[in-house]
Structure formats: C-alpha cells, structure tokens
C-alpha cells in the first residue's frame, strides 16, 4: 500500500548513484533488480546527472530505505552486508517508490492474525496498521504473495510465528523474497500510471484463436496449426500441461505430412525495438525425427527494404524427442521486425512434427546457459539429491559448474564452482570479479508473471581460504580431483553459494517444477567495470546540484538543507510542542512561547487601548470644560451690552 501524496512520487526515470562503499556483488545485483523493474513496470533508472533528487545506494548498516521521494536531494538507500539479494533490493526500492509493508494496510486484520504475545517486547509498534487516510491499497486485494509482506517469523521472541494467515495455505507464502507478485506490479503500475514497460515486447501461449497476430508465410510448403494435442505428441500444451480440458493450445508443424526439406514458416506480428537487443524464449517439442530442425530468423524492415530482409539467426538441431524443451535465442535488431519460426523436415522418417508454445520476447539479456534437470521431484529431500551441472564456459573463458544440494530436509542449496578448463593458461588468476547469477526459473507462460528465484555470487580475487590459498585461484592448483559422468578427470575449486537458496515448500510452488522438469539459468559475466567510481556530474552542469547549493549553507539544530529551485533552503526539525525556524533553523519556538507571546500581546494591547481611552477622556473633558467657560463669558458680555 502506498503513501498518499503526489509529492512523494518520483519521475518515471529515477536518477541513481551506486556509491563506492557498495560490495561488488551488490552493485551487480542492483543492476539486475533494475532490469526486473524495466521488464515489468514503466519505472526506469539512469545514472545521476545532476537532477535535483536522486537515490544514492550505499553500503550502510543493514537494508533500509525511506518511503517515497523525500525531495532531499541525495536520498539514501542502504544495501548492507547480506542485503545483496535481488528481491531484497526490489523490496527496498518499492519503499523508495512510495510503498509501505503489505501487512500494515488498514484491512490487515481481515486476512492475518497478529499473535501479540509472540512479539519481542517493545517491537509491537512494527505491527501497527495505518488507515486509508495514511496509506492507499490502490483498490487491490490483500496480497499474501507480496514481496513487501513480513515473513511469519518477523520480530518473534521465540520460535512461534508472529503472523498467522487466516487462510492456512498462505502461512509459508508470506514473506517471499523472490520477485514482484502480480499485485505488487498492479499497485506499482497504478501508482505510476504505467501502461507499458521499457523492455517487454510480447508473450504468446496460443490460447486465443488469433494466435497473437502471428501469420503464416506464403513462400513455404505447409502451415503451422493451432492444436491442443497431437497423436504422436505432445499430448498437451506446455502452458497448462493439459490441466484445463478444452484449452491449452500450441502451434504444430506436421513434418510427417511433407517431403524432406519442406518448410512451414510462422511469422510474429510487427515488433518495434527500443534497445537494440532482444531475448527470444520458447518451448519446443519434437515428435518428428531427430533430423527435423527449427530455424529462427528475423525479418527486419527499413526505409531501403519495405518488404523486410530475412536473416537466419539460429538453427536448432538435435531437438530431443518426446518432451517440451526450453530454448533461448539472442537477437540484435534495431529496426521494426518480425520473429520468424521456420520448421524444416529432416531426412529421416518422421512420425509427428515440431510444436512451439509459451513464446516470450523481451529486450533483455538472455541467460548464458541453461541447465535442465529432468525427473526432478525424486531428488527433493533425497540422499541422491546432490546434483552437479554439466561444465560451462563464461564469456571470458572461465570453466565452471553449479552444485545443487537437495538433500536437506527443508532447504535447497546452490553453489558456484570454478573448474579446470581449456583456457586456463590464458586467463587471469585468481579469477577477478566474475559475477555468477543462478536462477531457478518460474515456468509461468508469461514472463511478466514469473517469480523466479535468483542468487548471485562474485569472485573476489583477494579472498583467501583457511589455509591461505586464494579462493578463486586456478582450479588445477587449488581444486580437488573430480570426474565427469563419462570418466574424464578434472579439478574443481571450492563452492561458493548458499545452503538456503529456496525452501522445498517454495520449490514445489508456482511453476518451478513443470512436467517434472526444472531449469536453472546461468549467467557469468565480468563486472570489473563496476569497481570504478560512478561518473558523477561535472561542475559545468547547468543546474546546481544539491551538494553545490548546500556546500556553504549549513542548517543549524539538525535542519536539513534542500535544493529548492537552485537555492538552498533549510527544513527545520520540530516536535509535538516545539520547532526550529529561521533561515538556518537558528531560532527555537515552542507552544509555551506562543502562549506567553499571545498573553503578553493581549495585555499590551489592552494596556495601550486603556491608555488611549483615558487620554481621550481626559482631552475631551478638558476641551469641554474650556468650551463651557468660554461660552459663559460671551453670554455675560452680551448681557452687559444689552442692559
């Protein structure tokens, strides 16, 4: 629920500074959190360039923020130790954007019970509710799934929950720190009047007959058909996995009914890029032959070629038979374009064909690698639940592996390992500032509704182990011998990650497991550039910034200097019956002073009026007497003259 008052709103593009004090990993995670805002809301972020107000993210003590735009110039947001989780950063930025916690809304008691005697003494005030004159729930229902909700253990004095949900199924849902909930997004988008986002382009699960405006090409040999099942497979779509009778559609190219080399081409509607790079993702099912393939093209339009230029981006071959498989394809398009899916019949006998479903297109970076874990449920809580990913290479050439530990009774752990690789002799050691981002994919058909669970770790070249080795040194030097399933020997460095990646309860929720498949998305990127200080505005910036204006203007008595139309101005502190005032908050006032002043003023006015009255009476009487005396004298003279 949001703070009431337009003055608390930020512009849609928020200026920010990442201060030097931040940990390297935190800097990378903050930038990833910004990407989530750009995908799902109309909020964007840009490096501060002298704007009057900006958010300064620094490593303070703890994780905290103010609520709303405070118009104080540099507004602090702390991402301290252990706060470098993407959803924690999303949470703090939601505060900065003007949101309070979910359970403080006025109708809270209809949905959760607060167990007051389980709350630490003196912390009860953290469970206050605020009426609808203070906060606005924006006409959105109470949200157990909000990233802004307390967890059930918040401020507990023992081990029992302090918050009990009225619907028991939500007990382990409250306090999720994965991603925005649907209602978080609805509220944020309502508060900021968002109608679109910067990076989302399209999502299609083929449930509607218009197939999202996709068109059949005329220059091919066959068409893609919208179906809900195919005898040779798939038995159901991927969106619903057959759970909804009468719905659940996908597009199918029947390669068994065409000749070798024949194609079926399906083109998306026209799309208009803003950033110049895109990530296409979709699920693909092969029931034809292992030789069937799917070609991904873009048809890009320009002033020179109004019919569009068709460019092959990727050939997808060796598509596994008999299951839905996720694919990512990176595009780099700057003009308006269409995405083109071209199914091709291979040279071997086909019994079915290719099917596609749950397409998403966004102007974001694709993950570098995908680790698909099949038949996943059997590993949860099992002694066999120690899983190593296949080896992967980062863009810089470092070889790595992921370890997923599912053996614990309640939590799943995840760890990043450097391993010996082919490029080791050409690489820098200890490995400097490579950030590994590990994401458990929520396989919701719509990318905007996914609440994927993500953690990042960064290789610090100065980090050492207990025996004095560099933690991220060459695995062939500091690692231990290990073997791939095919028997090949290699060396594996120590793992770095968390044993509390996600609880098993949450792992089983949403669409993390779909068709008994789980996907771990992996990106390892060089973030060395974040080690340097963010470029700040130069002194030639036309508008003076807050620090310039306030540098030589100090407010007294804890007053806060702000930039108001380029002039320094003090905001003075006050209490219930006292305040500071004056240009620099140098004068103190209080209610008592006011009473004294009012009483004194009244007395003074009364005295003054009394004096005026007395003087007036005195003068009037004196004048009257004089006049009376004068008149008597005249009369006497007149009488003398008459007689």
């Amino acid at each position, binding site marked *: 629920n949001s703070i009431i008052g337009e003055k608390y709103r930020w512009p849609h593009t928020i200026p920010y500074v990442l201060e030097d004090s931040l940990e390297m990993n935190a800097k990378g995670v903050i930038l990833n959190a910004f990407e989530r805002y750009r995908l799902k809301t109309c909020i964007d972020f840009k490096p501060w360039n002298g704007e009057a107000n900006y958010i300064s993210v620094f490593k303070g*003590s*703890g*994780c*905290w*923020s*103010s*609520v709303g735009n*405070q118009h*104080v110039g540099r507004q*602090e947001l702390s991402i*301290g*130790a*252990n*706060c470098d989780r993407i959803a*924690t950063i999303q*949470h*703090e930025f939601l*505060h900065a954007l003007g949101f*309070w*916690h979910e359970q*403080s809304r006025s109708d809270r008691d209809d949905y959760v019970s607060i167990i007051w005697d389980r709350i630490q003494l003196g912390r009860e005030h*953290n469970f206050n509710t605020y009426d609808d004159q203070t906060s606005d729930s924006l006409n959105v229902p109470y949200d157990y799934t909000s990233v802004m909700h*307390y*967890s059930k*253990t*918040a*401020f507990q004095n023992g081990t029992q929950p302090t918050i009990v949900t009225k619907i028991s199924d939500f007990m382990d849902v409250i*306090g999720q*720190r994965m991603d925005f909930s649907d209602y978080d997004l609805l509220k944020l988008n309502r508060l900021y009047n968002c109608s679109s986002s910067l990076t989302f382009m399209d999502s299609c699960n083929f449930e509607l007959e218009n197939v999202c405006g996709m068109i059949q090409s005329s220059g091919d040999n066959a068409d893609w058909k919208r179906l809900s099942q195919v005898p040779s497979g798939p038995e159901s779509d991927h969106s619903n996995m057959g759970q909804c009778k009468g719905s659940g559609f996908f597009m199918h190219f029947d390669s068994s009914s065409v000749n070798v080399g024949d194609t079926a081409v399906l083109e998306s509607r026209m799309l208009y890029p803003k950033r110049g790079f895109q990530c296409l993702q979709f699920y693909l099912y092969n029931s034809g032959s292992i030789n069937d393939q799917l070609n991904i093209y873009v048809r890009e339009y320009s002033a020179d070629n109004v019919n569009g230029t068709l460019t092959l981006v990727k050939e997808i071959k060796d598509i596994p038979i008999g299951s839905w498989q996720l694919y990512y394809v990176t595009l780099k398009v700057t003009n308006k374009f269409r995405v083109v899916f071209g199914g091709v019949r291979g040279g071997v006998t086909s019994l079915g064909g290719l099917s596609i479903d749950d397409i998403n297109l966004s102007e974001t970076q694709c993950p570098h690698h995908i680790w698909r874990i099949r038949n996943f449920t059997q590993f949860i809580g099992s002694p066999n639940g*120690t899983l190593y990913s296949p080896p992967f290479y980062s863009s810089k050439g470092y070889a790595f592996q992921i*370890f997923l*530990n599912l053996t614990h009774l309640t*939590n799943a*752990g995840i*760890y990043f390992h450097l391993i010996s690789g082919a490029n080791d002799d050409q690489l820098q050691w200890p490995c400097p500032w490579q950030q590994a981002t590990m994401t458990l994919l929520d396989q919701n058909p719509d990318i905007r509704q996914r609440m994927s669970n993500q953690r990042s*770790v960064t290789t610090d070249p100065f980090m050492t182990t207990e025996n004095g080795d560099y*933690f991220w040194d060459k695995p062939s030097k500091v690692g*231990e011998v290990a073997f791939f399933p095919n028997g090949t020997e290699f060396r594996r460095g*120590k*793992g*770095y*990650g*968390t*044993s*509390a990646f996600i*609880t098993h309860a949450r792992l089983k929720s949403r669409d993390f497991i779909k068709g008994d498949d789980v996907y771990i998305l992996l990106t390892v990127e060089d973030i060395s550039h974040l080690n340097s200080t963010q470029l700040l505005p130069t002194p030639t910036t036309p508008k003076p910034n807050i620090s310039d204006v306030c540098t030589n203007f100090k407010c007294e008595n804890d007053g*806060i200097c702000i930039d108001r139309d380029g002039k320094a101005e003090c*905001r003075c*502190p*006050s*209490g*219930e019956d006292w305040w500071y005032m004056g240009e620099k908050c140098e004068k103190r006032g209080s209610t008592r002073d006011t009473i004294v002043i009012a009483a004194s003023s009244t007395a003074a006015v009364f005295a003054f009026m009394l004096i005026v009255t007395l003087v007036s009476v005195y003068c009037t009487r004196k004048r009257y007497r004089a006049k009376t005396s004068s008149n008597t004298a005249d009369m006497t003279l007149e009488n003398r003259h008459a007689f």
Partner: protein
Amino acid sequence: KGQDTNVDGGLDQDIFDINEDLGLDLFEGDIKLDWTQDR
C-alpha cells in the same frame, strides 16, 4: 563435500532479521523515516 562456503553463513535471514542482528530499530524494521513522517 563439506567445503562449500556459504555467502550468508547458511542462514536464511530476511531483511528484518539482518537489521535486528545489527541492533537497528528502524520503523517497521527497514524504513527510515524523515522528520516530517516521524512527526
């Protein structure tokens, strides 16, 4: 295995736990109020 290093000491600490361990007593656990809101 046993040689993996936990970035968070193996503790699944929420925002409020982190701040509490640091002895912070912020409004609702993680909100810094300015003086006008405090008032």
